[in-house]
């Protein structure tokens, strides 16, 4: 009986909800380059599990915007950042990207971290013919005309790390990764490399994202006795892995772990004493010595606090803003197709050294660096490539990688 009278009257409840949605349309608006302002979108996870990593990239991007404005902006106009929260949720990334493009009409978007968030945004940018600058090292095998990739692709991070290990005489490897696209693709590449170069892969293990129980995995590693462990774990799992590895008797001297997703920020969370002596592979460290980096680190600490560290993805996000600004200056407009055309060959002196946009695949030529984690949480460079490595997202220039793409 109850529900009968009830629901009749209460269908009225739909009214406010629907009216609200219907009435509040098109707030803001305005073109990307109207008046003396240029709107740029910044889209990272500010809440949820990925906030831990992405908030710092947003900070670096905002710093770059601020610096550019201090020097007079771009084309005589000030950059106005519009920040959105991807909430660590891939559909939200797609939704917010669409919102930045069609509601805010931004000139370009800087954003994303996980492969999943990029894959979710890709169709949105391609459909709207808008630009995304993606600042994180990733698994390659992609080259969208509407995305610029300012982080490393596999031949600028994973392949050099393998070369380094091979040169050190490491013959037996164990692969550990979180269960998602980047580790699985990375390990596919590693196995192809190993097969060609006579390196033995003793084990390949994946754990769910957010996994915190690593004693069994550590036991498997101890049992296999590899020369090195290649670690593609993500986020919080690294903390648990290194803490539990330390008690097991596996030391960096006997079995170094090479990580490709552990940077200065993560070292702080793991505790430097738990990861000191292990290796990481990136294109930039806070300790990298270039004039641009001195200025970057100083400015970052001045803006966000002296205890803050800088890391590779932050630097790649910072570079992205500058690279885009240079391309706009060269094009003389923020119009997407013109910027894309102008972008090829753009070079800046970034904190990591000279970085150049490759016009063919819209990736960036970067110097590869292997680092050793120090007891103070900083990373010391122990090897670097002779110069910037030309990006090759499909690994076409490597004959052992024939079957991969």
């Amino acid at each position, binding site marked *: 009986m109850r529900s009968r009278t009830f629901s009749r009257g*209460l*269908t009225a409840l739909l009214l406010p909800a629907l009216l609200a*949605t219907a009435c509040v349309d098109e707030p803001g608006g305005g073109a990307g380059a109207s008046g003396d302002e240029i709107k740029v979108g910044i889209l990272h996870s500010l809440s949820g599990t990925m906030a831990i990593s992405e908030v710092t990239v947003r900070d670096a991007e905002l710093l770059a915007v601020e610096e550019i404005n201090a020097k007079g902006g771009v084309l005589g106009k000030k950059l106005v950042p519009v920040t*959105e929260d991807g909430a660590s949720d891939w559909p939200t990334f797609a939704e917010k990207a*669409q919102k930045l493009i069609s509601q805010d009409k931004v000139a370009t978007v800087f954003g994303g971290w996980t492969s999943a968030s990029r*894959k*979710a945004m890709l*169709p949105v940018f391609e459909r709207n013919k808008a630009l995304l600058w993606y600042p994180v090292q990733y698994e390659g095998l992609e080259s969208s005309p509407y995305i610029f990739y300012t982080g490393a692709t596999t031949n600028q991070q994973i392949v050099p790390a393998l070369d380094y290990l091979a040169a050190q005489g490491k013959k037996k490897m164990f692969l550990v990764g979180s*269960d998602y696209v980047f580790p699985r693709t990375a390990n596919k590449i590693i196995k192809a490399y190993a097969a060609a170069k006579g390196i033995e892969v003793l084990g390949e293990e994946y754990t769910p994202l957010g996994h915190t129980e690593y004693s069994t995995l550590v036991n498997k590693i101890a049992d296999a006795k590899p020369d090195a462990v290649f670690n593609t774990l993500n986020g919080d799992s690294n903390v648990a892995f290194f803490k539990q590895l330390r008690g097991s008797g596996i030391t960096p001297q006997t079995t170094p772990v090479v990580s490709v997703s552990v940077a200065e920020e993560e070292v702080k969370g793991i505790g430097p004493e738990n990861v000191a002596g292990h290796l990481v592979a990136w294109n930039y460290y806070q300790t990298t010595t270039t004039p641009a980096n001195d200025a970057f680190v100083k400015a970052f600490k001045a803006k966000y606090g002296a205890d803050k560290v800088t890391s590779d993805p932050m630097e790649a996000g910072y570079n992205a803003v500058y690279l885009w600004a240079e391309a706009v200056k060269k094009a003389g407009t923020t119009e997407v197709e013109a910027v894309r055309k102008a972008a090829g060959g753009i070079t800046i002196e970034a904190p990591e050294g000279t970085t150049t946009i490759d016009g063919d695949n819209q990736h960036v030529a970067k110097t590869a660096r292997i680092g050793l984690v120090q007891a103070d949480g900083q990373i010391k460079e122990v090897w670097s490539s002779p110069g910037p490595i030309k990006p090759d997202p499909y690994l076409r220039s490597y004959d052992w990688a024939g079957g991969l793409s």
Partner: protein
Amino acid sequence: MTWGRISLVVCVVLLALAPLTLSPFRLGLLAKYLCFAIVAVGIALAWGQGGMLTLGQGVFFGLGGYAMAMYLKLEEAGSAGLPDFMVWSGVEELPALWKPFGNPVFALAAVVLVPGLVAFLLGLLVFRQRVRGAYFAILSQALAAAFVILLVGQQGLTGGTNGMTNFTGFFGLDLTDPNGQRAVYAIAALVLGVLFLVAKLLVRSRFGRLLVAVRDGEDRVRFLGYDPALVKTITFTVSAVMAGLAGALFVPVVGIISPAMLGIVPSLELLVGVAVGGRFVLAGAIAGAIAVNYAKTLFSEDFAEGWLYLQGGLFVLVLVFAPKGLAGVVESVRERFGRKPVEVTA
């Protein structure tokens, strides 16, 4: 009596006008809320009427969504090609599991049957053993967690954490075109309307009264000679089918389906909407789902970091001060204005 009917008409008119007044972006968002509202109808049935707090509704949403996504991906890839994510996952031949999904009839049937069947079997197992209340809630939560891990682990089959993205067509509609998007919106609105009516009929029927009786005194119903396990299983199955349909519509509306949509947190967020709107009233649940999701969009556009406070706080406030949700508030207002009192149990 009549103003309920009037508001229903107004709602229909508003929903019909939306495509004319809203930008494609906002219309897409509204269509997404409607998908969640469809799930909310199912939850209101299972939870509000049946007392089964299901935290695993995301599983059925996902089953429906993936079934639809598999068909759309195959449609796009053509007869010889492979879906894009398989190419970069290193899969060379179409897995056997995928093959029947090339057929639209099979895929549409799967959208309804797979979630329904899974829910039916699970319900039979669980409710026969008289697992209920908190136990059921926790079990359904564990189910959602296990399902997500399973999906993520089978990257070659499911796209892993990335899920499936980049859908351009939906049964001949062009999803990149505003008219195609309007059509998809219309389908979502229509499905919601039909399912709302079905749920209403169910609630008003003899079965619906039995369901409420099971909620309020399961053992007593058993002593009267009915089988409460069957009543619950059927209701649970119906709510799962609704979630599956919503998932299937979500794919063309949002253009992505991934495990992130199916875990515990999204399942709980769906409950927030239902609780806020009023779980005992179907229309209240729908309104709640739309309102909460709309609020989420609005607040995360303006102050992203505060959304969790607001969402958590809203939830606490509603449960403490208005346990029957907005619907309960409206009811008490109506009573005050001299309407005939409405009898409420539980």
